[in-house]
């Protein structure tokens, strides 16, 4: 494996810098209204058009699925290329200073690193399509099995963070609109801006300092393992969940507020006001359904972030999730693991974006027929 490219390949940037949600590459940030053109073809074209008219929702889902598969394929190429372009290869990196040239050569041959790139790519892709991600080069364990465990941990953490943050964010956002430009709105704004301005490791350290070191009431580290009961697990993840809630809350809350305010200035809301409806009723019945699309998109991005982008929180709290797993693998160029993690992360983004689009359309039928 020689002839290596620059330090950071495109795939690496795709996977590792999706931290805030905003920095998502355009190729993945599919928005609700940008429906791609239907597959071309003379006969299938008309059949497809009729199907689109009759069942717009089903057609949309099919299109999205097809697009997702294409995207995943593209991502797999980028990931493979990116890892390939990383300087240094597995054998030298893994053995480090303790390895001799002979041992390095042995490992390379053993893993088939001497084979051409294209051959390795397609044999990997073939396995991945069947759900077999191969074995880790470093630990020689099954990648699928390992990922199953780690992904479970990540989802567990993300689930509880979402369970608290999503309703809280939406409620606070609506509250802020209700009292806009008055004291509650200002407090919510200032606090959420402060929370979003602090880096997540800093929030994490502060929580650890107060609740674990000084008060001694919280569990730290948040390491979870197989033989742990649910109660123990919940107490272990209390601090990381609190950190994540603070990190994602502001983003969703502010988007909710902005989207509703945007709708509030439109003509039909004015009409509702003139009809003499109560403020809360206007927000809930008239403004919210029209504001739901951008809010759902932001929620989806933040949910994806909770699964994919929480490496820092995992490291600070010593939590065995996917992020840490992937970073460890990148460090030693353990390709099967890096690629599998990358694909799964991409799949999460694509799935959540798709779900966001579909939900937005369900909530607001006007989006079903884009002009």
């Amino acid at each position, binding site marked *: 494996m020689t002839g290596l490219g620059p*330090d950071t390949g495109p795939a690496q940037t795709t996977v590792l810098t999706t931290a805030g949600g905003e920095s998502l590459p355009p190729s993945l940030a599919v928005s609700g209204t940008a429906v791609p053109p239907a597959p071309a073809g003379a006969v299938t074209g008309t059949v497809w058009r009729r199907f689109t008219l009759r069942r717009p929702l089903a057609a949309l889902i099919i299109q999205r699925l097809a697009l997702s598969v294409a995207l995943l394929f593209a991502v797999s190429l980028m990931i493979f290329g990116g890892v390939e372009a*990383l*300087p*240094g*290869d597995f054998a*030298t*990196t*893994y*053995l*480090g*200073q*303790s*390895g*001799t*040239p*002979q*041992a390095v050569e*042995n*490992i390379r041959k*053993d893993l088939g690193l001497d084979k051409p790139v294209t051959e390795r790519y397609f044999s990997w892709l073939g396995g991945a399509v069947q759900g077999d991600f191969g074995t*880790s*080069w*470093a*630990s*020689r*364990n099954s990648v699928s099995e*390992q990922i199953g*465990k*780690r992904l479970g941990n990540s989802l567990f953490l993300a689930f509880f963070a979402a369970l608290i943050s999503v309703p809280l964010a939406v409620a606070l956002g609506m509250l802020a609109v209700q009292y806009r430009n008055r004291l509650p709105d200002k407090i919510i704004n200032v606090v959420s801006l402060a929370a979003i301005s602090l880096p997540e490791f800093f929030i994490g*350290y502060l929580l*650890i*300092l107060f609740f*674990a*070191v000084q008060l*001694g009431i919280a569990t*730290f*580290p948040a*390491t979870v*393992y*197989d*033989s742990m009961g649910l109660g123990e697990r919940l107490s272990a993840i209390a601090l990381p969940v609190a950190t994540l809630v603070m990190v994602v809350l502001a983003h969703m809350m502010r988007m909710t507020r902005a989207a509703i305010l945007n709708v509030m200035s439109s003509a039909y809301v004015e009409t509702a006001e003139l009809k003499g409806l109560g403020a809360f009723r206007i927000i809930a019945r008239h403004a919210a359904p029209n504001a739901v699309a951008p809010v759902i998109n932001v929620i989806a991005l933040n949910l994806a972030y909770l699964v994919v982008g929480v490496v820092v929180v995992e*490291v*600070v*709290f*010593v939590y*065995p999730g996917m992020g*840490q*797993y992937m970073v*460890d*693998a*990148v*460090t*030693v160029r*353990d390709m099967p*693991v890096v690629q599998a993690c990358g694909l799964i992360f991409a799949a999460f983004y694509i799935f959540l974006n798709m779900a966001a689009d579909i939900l937005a359309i369900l909530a607001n039928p006007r989006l079903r027929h884009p002009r």
Partner: protein
Amino acid sequence: MSDYKNYLADQVRMGKMNRRDFMGRALAAGVALSSASTLFATSAAAQEPKRGGHLKLGLEGGSATDSIDPAKATSQVMFLAVRTWGDTLVETHPTTRAPLPALAESWSPSPDATVWTFKIRKGVQFHDGKEMTTDDVVATLKRHSDEKAESGALGVMKSITSVENKDGDLVVTLASGNADLPQIFTDYHLVIQPNGGTDNPTAAIGTGAYKLASFDAGVRMTFEKNPNDWRSDRGYVDSIEVINMNDATARIAALSSGQVHFINRVDPKTVSLLTRAPNVQLLTTSGGGHYVFIMHCDTAPFDNADLRMALKYAIDREEMVTRILGGYGKVGNDFPINDTYALFPEGIEQRTYDADKAAFHFKKSGHSGPVLLRTSEVAFPGAVDASVLFQESAKKAGIEIEIKREPGDGYWSNVWNVQPFSASYWGSRATQDQFYSGAYLSTADWNDTRFKRPEFDKLLISARAELDEAKRKDMYRQMAMMVRDDGGTILPMFNDFVNASSKAVKGYVSDIGNDMSNGYVATRVWLDA
């Protein structure tokens, strides 16, 4: 034993050790040496080891890619794990590095040190209940010296030509004489496994004080006491839990909140903060690891001996130790051996910062313009700061050093051992011979200074086979002088191993062999609640 007491007394006389350390070490050695030693048992009756309890360690240096196979154990956490569940043939003395019997009871070399006979201990059981035999030892050594193997110990095993079981004794034949063979067998990769571990390399079955109970790479592992341990002077706690904590702040928080008993890799910058916690004690040990700036002796402009000398005089070692190591280390003298090694060549003049001499040699070298130094934080902790300090002190001598900061990722494959002038780190080895053979012999795998001197090689190989200690010591002195005055290594400092523990942890042995009490911390300490 009297040698050791003299050694301790010497340390006290030289002002290197206060009374408290002296007592600590004496006690520690009693634990590590033999249970038969009544001397220490009586003098330290108040500190009788306690049994029982659950020991929790928060360690840096593990990863999801770790393998439990000892041949592939490379990380700090796996080093400790292997030491906890397995035993090697030979162990090293914690303060002198002298070889001590472990699974090998005794050994004797042939007069030219090429054929070695080891008596293997009888009646030792593996964790699965099977008795350990000489055949298991032979199989283990064969596995690690196999050219096709992917063992981390392959480098030190290369000189072995045959390993045999002769009437229950282990007979090892070498290509050329090596007086240090017993020390080679202290390498942690070489733990003895049933049938050499070839049947199931990841079963983690050994003869150690603890059995591996669960293993989750990069996350956590647990150990249970081995009820059939062949030694009674170790394995005091009932169970051990190792949690992988790669974040320095997380380790400190876990220790100061009492969630773990022991942490490794304490950053010198945070030591003062950490020791403010009432229940925390600092455990430092001087070792043979060192931070270096390496120059390729065969690449311009570093192929010029005067330029190399100029740079060696242009570095302020004292300042480096104070500012980069926070005082937890010792100044280096441009050769990779310090007084933690047996047969250390004493009395070599300490090189110090001298701007005039540096300027003189720089002018004599005929070189002009800046010298490019590549550095990165992964070379050693504080490497970038150290490079800037070097740049400043060299500037005063009229030498311009240009610093290029390299990405940490890929540093070891793209910069170290590739570029002519870079920052780097070396851990210590069991013997001087191992170190020089691995990094200074012309044909060494990791000759990262391109130091190729036939007279040095000749000296090294004859010293290796020399069984007369006085003669050997003299040879090592000559070799040290060659490296110091002609080599490509600028060696400003040897770093200490800095660990910390709760005060409930007793019996910690400051073992100069390696970090974390040479990996034995979990089997040597006990908990006093």
